[in-house]
């Protein structure tokens, strides 16, 4: 199917199979179509179909809330064309060449599964074709048994890697996480679309690093810390990681975070914020390089970082409400320039 998009910066054409989504097909062709979650929740990838028609995968997607469906508004991440389409997209879009890093569909099979806590699983995918991606990026996973895609950040990063590492938190009513938790899924095949997201770490910027993550949002932070550690970045820069969970028992990857903090000898500080439990001590009983605080993770970051935002880049990932709170802290308290605040919202 031929898709024509009219944008605020010109008109572009691309091909989209009936099985693919308008957003994904456009991104694969190098168009910088607007998106954030790429899975129907945020509403950023809105477009208006002026001619033609499309099938909507997730009709109840929260991202439709502000759209005028009677006028043809669609979430491009949920729209599969059933004819040639003319779509208006109210954003500036450019066509770029990706040097091998443009998002694509790949198949992968689930290779390693390890339960980290009562509701968190570490799992790895073996890719059909290698993928290059930055620390902090994510992909959309879709399993044949589960309707719709889910966005997950990789814990790892690299050039031409053939394995993606993820952490998945079980959510009440979350179809994909239920599938992961309730089934013996080792060896099953999933579709992987990515890499996506611009919440990426660039060592050449020379900034101190502040990471604020809730739950499985820690995945992207781990890839950022790993990359920084590998490049000896903390020799000249500081790092702060604030990781929000409900209770002490809900923490995960603490061994890895504690090891990084120990290796960096005070240049990297890690704080675990407990929102639903009083912390038993000032530091974690098992991981002495992890400090404990009570309350919401954005509040913990605000209290700790006051007056320490010099030359900082902020990374934020987690549930939307947590991300919104953390962004306010970074802009209002930290007075960071929006250019140096990067975030992913997952719901």
């Amino acid at each position, binding site marked *: 199917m031929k898709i024509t998009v*009219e*944008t*605020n*910066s*010109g008109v572009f054409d691309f091909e989209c199979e009936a099985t693919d989504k308008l957003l994904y097909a456009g991104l694969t062709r190098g168009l910088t179509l607007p998106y*954030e979650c790429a899975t129907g929740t945020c*509403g*950023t990838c*809105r477009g*208006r179909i002026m001619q033609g028609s499309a099938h909507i995968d997730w009709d109840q997607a929260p991202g439709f809330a*502000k759209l*005028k469906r009677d*006028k043809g*508004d669609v979430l491009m991440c949920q729209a599969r064309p059933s004819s040639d389409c003319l779509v*208006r997209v*109210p*954003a*500036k879009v450019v066509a770029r060449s990706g040097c091998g890093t443009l998002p694509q569909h790949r198949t992968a099979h689930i290779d390693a599964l390890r339960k980290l806590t009562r509701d968190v699983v570490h799992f790895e995918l073996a890719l059909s074709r290698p993928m290059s991606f930055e620390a902090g990026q994510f992909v959309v996973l879709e399993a044949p048994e589960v309707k719709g895609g889910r966005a997950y950040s990789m814990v790892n990063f690299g050039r031409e890697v053939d394995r993606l590492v993820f952490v998945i938190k079980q959510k009440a009513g979350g179809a994909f996480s239920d599938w992961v938790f309730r089934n013996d899924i080792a060896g099953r095949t999933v579709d992987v679309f990515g890499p996506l997201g611009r919440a990426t770490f660039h060592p050449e910027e020379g900034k101190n690093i502040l990471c604020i993550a809730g739950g499985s949002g820690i995945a992207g932070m781990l890839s950022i810390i790993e990359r920084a550690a590998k490049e000896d970045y903390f020799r000249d820069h500081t790092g702060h990681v604030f990781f929000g969970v409900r209770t002490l028992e809900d923490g995960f990857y603490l061994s890895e975070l504690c090891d990084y903090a120990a290796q960096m000898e005070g240049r990297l500080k890690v704080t675990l914020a407990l929102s639903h439990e009083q912390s038993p001590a000032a530091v974690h009983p098992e991981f002495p390089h992890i400090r404990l605080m009570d309350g919401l993770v954005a509040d913990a970051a605000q209290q700790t970082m006051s007056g320490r935002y010099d030359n900082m880049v902020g990374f934020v990932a987690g549930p939307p409400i947590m991300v*919104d709170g953390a*962004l*306010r802290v970074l*802009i*209002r308290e930290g*007075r960071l*320039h*929006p*250019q140096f*605040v990067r*975030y992913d919202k997952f719901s």
Partner: protein
Amino acid sequence: MTWKRVCKVTDVPENTLKKFTVDEVTLLIANYGGGFRAIPPLCPHMQEPLEESGVIANCALTCTKHLWSWDLSSLDMLGETERPLQSYEVKLENGDILALIDKELVYEFEDEDDIKDDDFFSKA
């Protein structure tokens, strides 16, 4: 066009935004330290209520929902912001903030050059 009294200068502390309604026109007064701006209440990006999502720091107003940002002293767009912020002219008189309100400023899609006759941005 007439100047209309919106509030007292002291009603809006530095680096805050506050919502007022004047003759059925709802607007926000923003105090950015170097002065005041009177702006429509919604972000021109995705209609977020700026009274809640907006943060003022370093003379810039940033909508913390998607980090669109404007320099309040020059009204320049910052970073990846794609639409200008509209504003009412403002003056201070005897400790009051007055805004020049002719008609309510609303973000319409007609403002865009390339895409006309569309109300993509208008309020549902």
